């Protein structure tokens, strides 16, 4: 709602659609540079439509808000990284890494986004919530503003930060409709657990947290995975399934209700002791992007328009690391800098002048990361790889540890593990190495 005491300008330098991390960052940076910015979101309150996994990398965020690590609503700094490979029969391999320095933290995205938006407002951004933007207005092939219901508002430039469901870009014909190959479904539960219980169960201090990824049977073998993140007084658990493979699994009758997967995780005997006396206090779902580069629109700028964050496909999802929030913020910052350059030119926000944004993105660490991890994306979507990578090590350790009389040598155990997957140790080693290189 627009507060009645604000004087509402009729024209803005920039309108930002969507107050997620990408939109909030671009509005903040632009306002700080002195531009008149309108930021709109469809939520009741900034952040209240946001849902993600739980861990954010600090580096890129600090370039926008240098005091974010001291001032923002951060829950815990990730101290322990855990990864589990899960088999069908209760066999599980878990590795743990105890981190040496603080590079990422957990935060509630609704809370953090609200903080980011308040920072933008402090710099002069006008933020209006409860606004569904129905359309980007165009005139002579140039985006000139937004329409929501009967209301039209104009600006020199529009920044599209609408996230993964790109209704506005689809309507303009700039991207095609959603493609299951490129998307994944995330489903999540938030469990209320006492702080000291979390600390004891996960062996961490008050401000230390755990980021835990799960692979294998937790998604019934559908490429994707599970996650567990610890917060001050809650634990987030969830699963992410690659949409195209989820469709195949549904068609084959392997999955009846997607929401059962996250309940399976909550009730799983290996994990449920960690949140014995917990209560589910929130449940939700959100789409995410499986393959950023192919989701990326052909161009990131059009006359009068820049595309940032998820909408631009700028998210890295390697299977063991998700970097969406920091990429979103960073792309918002680059877009704001490009707008400043473009608006200082005589012709304003022409495609020519906005093109610097595309160049900045291409030269940035984000684009580089997306390219570097491209091959692994293909691999993570392959159900066969997915099954193999979990079964062989599980078999190996079961051979090694579950003994009756004789202890096998490591080589014997390895040989048997390979045999169980119908390959010789050598050919398998080559295959696995080929796979690992791509990771």
């Amino acid at each position, binding site marked *: 709602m627009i507060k009645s005491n604000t004087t509402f300008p009729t024209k803005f330098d920039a309108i930002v659609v969507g107050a997620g991390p990408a939109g909030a960052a671009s509005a903040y940076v632009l306002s700080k540079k002195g531009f008149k910015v309108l930021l709109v979101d469809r939520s009741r309150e900034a952040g209240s439509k946001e849902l993600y996994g739980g861990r954010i990398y600090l580096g890129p965020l600090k370039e926008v808000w240098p005091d974010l690590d001291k001032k923002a609503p951060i829950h815990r700094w990730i101290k322990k990284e855990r990864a589990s490979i899960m088999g069908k029969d209760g066999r599980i391999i878990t590795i743990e890494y105890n981190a040496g320095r603080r590079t990422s933290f957990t935060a509630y995205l609704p809370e953090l986004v609200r903080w980011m938006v308040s920072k933008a407002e402090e710099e002069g951004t006008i933020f209006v919530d409860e606004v569904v933007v129905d359309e980007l207005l165009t005139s002579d092939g140039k985006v000139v503003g937004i329409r929501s219901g009967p209301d039209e508002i104009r600006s020199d430039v529009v920044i599209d930060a609408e996230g*993964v469901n790109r209704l506005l870009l689809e309507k303009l014909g700039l991207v095609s409709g959603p493609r299951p190959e490129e998307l994944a479904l995330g489903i999540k539960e938030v469990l209320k657990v006492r702080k000291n219980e979390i600390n004891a169960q996960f062996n961490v201090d008050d401000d230390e947290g755990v980021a835990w990824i799960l692979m294998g049977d937790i998604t019934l073998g559908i490429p994707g995975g599970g996650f567990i993140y610890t917060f001050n007084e809650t634990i987030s658990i969830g699963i992410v399934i690659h*949409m195209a493979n989820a469709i195949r699994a549904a068609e084959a009758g392997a999955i009846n209700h997607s*929401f059962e997967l996250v309940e399976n995780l*909550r009730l799983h005997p290996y994990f449920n002791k960690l949140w014995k006396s917990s209560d*589910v206090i*929130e449940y939700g*779902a959100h789409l995410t992007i499986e393959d950023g580069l192919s989701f990326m629109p052909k161009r990131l700028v059009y006359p009068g328009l820049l595309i940032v964050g998820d909408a631009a496909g700028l998210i890295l999802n390697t299977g063991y690391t998700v970097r969406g929030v920091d990429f979103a913020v960073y792309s918002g910052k680059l877009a704001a800098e490009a707008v400043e350059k473009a608006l200082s030119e005589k012709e304003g926000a022409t495609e020519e002048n906005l093109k610097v944004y595309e160049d900045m993105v291409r030269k940035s660490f984000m684009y580089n990361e997306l390219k570097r991890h491209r091959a692994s994306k293909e691999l993570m979507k392959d159900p066969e790889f997915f099954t193999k990578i979990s079964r062989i090590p599980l078999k190996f350790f079961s051979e090694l540890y579950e003994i009756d009389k004789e202890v096998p040598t490591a080589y014997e155990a390895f040989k048997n593990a390979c045999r169980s997957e119908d390959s010789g140790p050598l050919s398998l080693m080559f295959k696995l190495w080929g796979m690992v290189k791509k990771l």
Partner: protein
Amino acid sequence: MKRLRIEELLQRNVWDVGKKPHIEINMDACGSCESKLCVKLCPAGCYTVVDGKVLFSYEGCLECGTCRTVCPQGAVKWSYPRSGKGVYYRFT
């Protein structure tokens, strides 16, 4: 610990459900569908099968976009609730 039904999970959330549905289903296209992927993949259980036909209720919708992505019939006319209605996330 006991398994929660989808209704029980959705009840844990804060909601302000709008009076008008924000998603519309083209029943002609929907009726001829075999796979009924929406029923299996919607994380809120908004799609159910009654007498072989798919029924849709928008009330528990999490606004995720799965149904519009998976519907093989293109029968889902999808949009967002107006005026901040719908789900209100706090801890996600």
